[in-house]
């Protein structure tokens, strides 16, 4: 493995984040703060505790997960889509660089940004609600695994997309609804039994549940199910990317 190309891609992508600091970091932090103001302070004060956790604190893991998922997908998809759009991808495809190195560079940068953002939002939420992290190791594990997995998904979307509208399609029409319906703002116990069963088909439920367990020790599904789901998703993304590079799908005619 050659580290120079990985470093070049990683640093170029991180430089793009610095150039677009308002959009990349400040904007998601402000959005999350607004969620805290509305759901945590205004509405949350009228909602009783859930499993012994105040509503404001209860939604912290879900909010971080919401941002983590959307930002990972959006960063990684844009990172690979833009060279395709501008035509400068010729350089990437003609470089003596393996597929794995390309993925590490782009996905590594997108995941780094998302993890950084997740930690900033975590720190921001500490300003609004009292925080406790019962299992810091698992919290970081979920943070990193989710960021990497959804950055891989974003990378796939970036290669698949043939226009800016399609680039936004999956994050807006799939990721955001699944996250909102994935228990970010409620425990699935609060749903009627039928919808509880339906909700279990939503993979985001497992991520939010596992992540929330790492904070408060409470979860909707078992830790093993959460870890299993994120691992399954990670493997599925890796298989898809392997196929893309093997066949040259939307990259090489």
């Amino acid at each position, binding site marked *: 493995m*050659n580290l*120079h*190309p990985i*470093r*070049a*891609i990683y*640093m*170029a992508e991180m*430089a*793009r984040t610095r*150039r677009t600091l308002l959009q990349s970091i400040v904007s998601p932090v402000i959005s999350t703060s607004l969620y805290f103001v509305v759901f945590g302070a205004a509405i949350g004060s009228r909602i009783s505790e859930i499993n012994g956790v105040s509503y404001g604190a209860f939604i912290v893991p879900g909010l971080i997960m919401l941002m983590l998922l959307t930002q990972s997908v959006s960063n990684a998809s844009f990172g690979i889509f*833009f*060279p395709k759009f*501008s*035509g*400068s991808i*010729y*350089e*990437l*495809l*003609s*470089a*003596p*660089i*393996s597929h794995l190195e390309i993925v590490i560079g782009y996905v590594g940068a997108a995941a780094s940004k998302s993890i950084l953002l997740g930690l900033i939002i975590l720190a921001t939420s500490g300003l609004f609600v009292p925080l406790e992290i019962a299992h810091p190791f698992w919290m970081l594990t979920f943070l990193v695994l989710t960021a990497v997995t959804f950055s891989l998904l974003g990378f796939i979307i970036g290669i698949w997309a043939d226009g800016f509208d399609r680039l936004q399609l999956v994050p807006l029409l799939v990721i955001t609804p699944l996250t909102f319906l994935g228990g970010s703002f409620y425990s699935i116990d609060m749903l009627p039994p039928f919808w509880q069963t339906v909700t279990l088909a939503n993979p985001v439920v497992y991520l939010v549940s596992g992540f929330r367990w790492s904070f408060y020790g409470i979860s909707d599904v078992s830790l093993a199910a959460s870890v299993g789901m994120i691992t399954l998703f990670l493997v599925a993304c890796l298989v898809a990317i392997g196929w893309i590079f093997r066949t*040259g799908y939307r990259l*090489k*005619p």
Partner: protein
Amino acid sequence: MNDPIITINGLNKTYEGGFQALTHIDLTIQRGEIFALLGPNGAGKTTLISVVCGLVNPTAGHVLVDGFDNITHFRQARERIGLVPQELTNEAFETVWNTVSFSRGLFGKAPNPEHIEKVLKSLALWDKRNNRLMTLSGGMKRRVLIAKALSHEPRILFLDEPTAGVDVELRREMWEVVRQLRDNGVTIILTTHYIEEAEEMADRIGVINRGELVLVEEKAALMSKLGSKQLTLNLHSPLTDMPANLQRFELSLAAEGYELIYTYDGSQDEDGHGISELLTALEREEITFKDLNTRQSSLEDIFVDLVKERA
């Protein structure tokens, strides 16, 4: 000279949808030469370059770059190649320095600011190193693409229509840059629409048409083999008929008999139909002329003839 740096064997490319862009291409590029690939639009020039550089998957055939297969040993093959694409494709918000340094890293080389400085200075980009690419003119952007391709010190440089849309002055400057590169041992393969460009720079010329390599020839040999010459004599008095003594020459009349045109290719001297014999014959017939001029067919004429012939 037989020191191949690129060997292409039996290369075919059929795109999805059935369009055959390349048909059984066999080509050898010698180390250190400037090779010009000529062909009309859609002939397969860019596809051929793209296959060699790894941008397009071949349907069949093999490409060896300095002895390395460009698919099974893609690292060794690609690190030897620099590519300047036809389109002005740039990361608009990056600075010149950053984008050229990025290219060096992408091609697996450790940072080397001295080399980047040398490349930028050789392309007159040093003063623009901190400018964003979106602020540069078209000519400057093309130079940046060349700088990016040279950033990793390639042994082979592909220039796909390097001077398309570039003004005459800049074009000549670029030719000079290309010659310097060749002098430094870089093998150059360029595609061009400008026959003048190939005529000016190339050592060898390949003509591609409808995906087939029509011919590959040394430029000088091609010009002499296929290039015809014309001698035009402006006569004092018009000729209505060709005198019998002049029938053995390939002559024609124009401008209502005031112009006598002799077409030859240099081989006539050997069989007694050369210029001196013609002039002697004219004197014998008492045909006098007040002016004369000669014209040699350009590479463009040869190219047009070749393509037309095989259409």
